C-alpha cells in the first residue's frame, strides 16, 4: 500500500481545521479506506476531543519521534470504525519538539499501512505549519467567508506555490445563506474569485456543530446534519467522484414569507 498524505491547514485559527480533519478522516474511513489522523497542533491538543477519543490516549506523536514507544502503541483506534486511527498531539510540549524531517519519516512509515494520512495543521505559518506541509501530497485549505480568514488563506496559498505544492484545494466553511442573500457575507463565488484555487467543498454554517463537538461526534456521523452532508460530498470528491456543489439556500419558507422577502430585498 502506498498512502497519500493529506494536510488540512488554514493560516487563520478557529476556522474549522480540526473539525474538518475529523469529518474528512471519519468519512474516508466509513468509505472503506484505512485512515490515520495526526494532530500536529502540539501543545494545543484538540482533535482527540472532537473525535471523542481523549480517554484512550496513552502515547502521542512526540513519544513516537522520540522513540519512547512503538508506532503501533500510539495509534488510537476509533470507537465507531476499525478503519480510523488517531495519533494525538503532545500536550506538554511545543511545536519545536518535532521537526519536518521527523514527521516526513513518520508519514513515510504510515504510508505502508494506510490509504490516507491526514495531518491536522496548527494555525499560523511557523514551524508547526511547516511540519504539516513538508510531507503533504495534497493540501486542503479551510477558510470562512471573512476577510481575515481569506487574507490568511491567500498567504498560505502563496507559500505553497513558492514551495511548488501543486495539489491544493479549498473548503469554504460556515457559509450563512441568510447573510449572503442580504449582501452581508461574501458568497462562495466571491471567495473563489479572490483566491482562485480549485474548490473541493462548501460547508454551511451549522448550529449543531457545537453540540456535536460537545459529545465528541463529528457531524458526518449525523444523518440529519447539513454540514455532515457537505463533508460526505467532500470525501467523495477526495476519492475522485464528480459531485456537484450543493446550493446552500435558506430553509423553505411559506408563500407569505416569500412575498415579504421579495419586498425586503
Amino acid at each position, binding site marked *: 500500500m502506498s498512502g497519500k498524505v493529506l494536510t488540512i491547514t488554514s493560516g487563520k485559527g478557529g476556522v474549522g481545521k480540526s473539525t474538518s480533519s475529523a469529518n474528512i478522516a471519519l468519512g474516508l474511513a466509513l468509505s472503506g479506506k484505512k485512515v490515520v489522523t495526526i494532530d500536529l497542533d502540539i501543545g494545543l491538543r484538540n482533535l482527540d476531543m472532537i473525535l471523542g477519543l481523549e480517554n484512550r490516549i496513552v502515547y502521542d506523536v512526540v513519544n513516537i519521534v522520540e522513540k519512547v514507544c512503538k508506532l503501533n502503541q500510539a495509534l488510537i483506534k476509533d470507537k465507531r470504525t476499525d478503519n480510523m486511527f488517531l495519533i494525538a498531539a503532545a500536550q506538554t510540549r511545543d511545536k519545536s519538539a518535532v521537526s519536518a524531517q521527523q514527521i516526513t519519516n513518520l508519514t513515510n512509515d504510515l504510508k505502508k499501512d494506510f490509504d490516507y494520512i491526514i495531518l491536522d495543521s496548527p494555525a499560523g505559518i511557523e514551524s508547526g505549519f511547516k511540519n504539516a506541509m513538508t510531507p503533504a501530497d495534497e493540501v486542503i485549505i479551510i477558510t470562512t*467567508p*471573512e*476577510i481575515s480568514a*481569506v*487574507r490568511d488563506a*491567500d*498567504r498560505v496559498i*502563496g507559500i505553497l506555490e*513558492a514551495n511548488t505544492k501543486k495539489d491544493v484545494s479549498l473548503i469554504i466553511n460556515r457559509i450563512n445563506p441568510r447573510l*449572503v442573500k*442580504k*449582501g*452581508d*457575507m*461574501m*458568497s462562495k463565488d*466571491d471567495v473563489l*474569485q*479572490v483566491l482562485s484555487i480549485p474548490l473541493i467543498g462548501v460547508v454551511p454554517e451549522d448550529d449543531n456543530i457545537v453540540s456535536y463537538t460537545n459529545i465528541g461526534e463529528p457531524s458526518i456521523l449525523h444523518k440529519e446534519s447539513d454540514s455532515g452532508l457537505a463533508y460526505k460530498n467532500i470525501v467523495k470528491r477526495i476519492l475522485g467522484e464528480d459531485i456537484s456543489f450543493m446550493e446552500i439556500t435558506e430553509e423553505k419558507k411559506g408563500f407569505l414569507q416569500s412575498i415579504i422577502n*421579495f*419586498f425586503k*430585498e
Partner: protein
Amino acid sequence: MFFDFFKKRKKTSANQAKERLQIILAHERATNKAPFLNDMRKDIIKVISKYVDIDPKTINVSLQKDNSVEVLEINIPIK
C-alpha cells in the same frame, strides 16, 4: 421597472469585503513573491538616470508569470 423601486441599490458590505481583499492581496502577492522589487526599482532608477533623462514616476517594474516562465518586466519611457 416598477419592481426596481422596491429593490435597494446599494453597495453591500460583501462587495466591499471582496474589493478590499482584491486590492490588498494583489499588493501582498507581489511583495511576498519578490520582496526585493522595490529596492531594485530604486537602484535601476539611479543607474539609468546617470545616463538618460527619465521620470522615476513612469518606471514600471513587475514580475509576471506567463505559463511556466517567470518574466521580470521593466518599462522605462525616456523623456
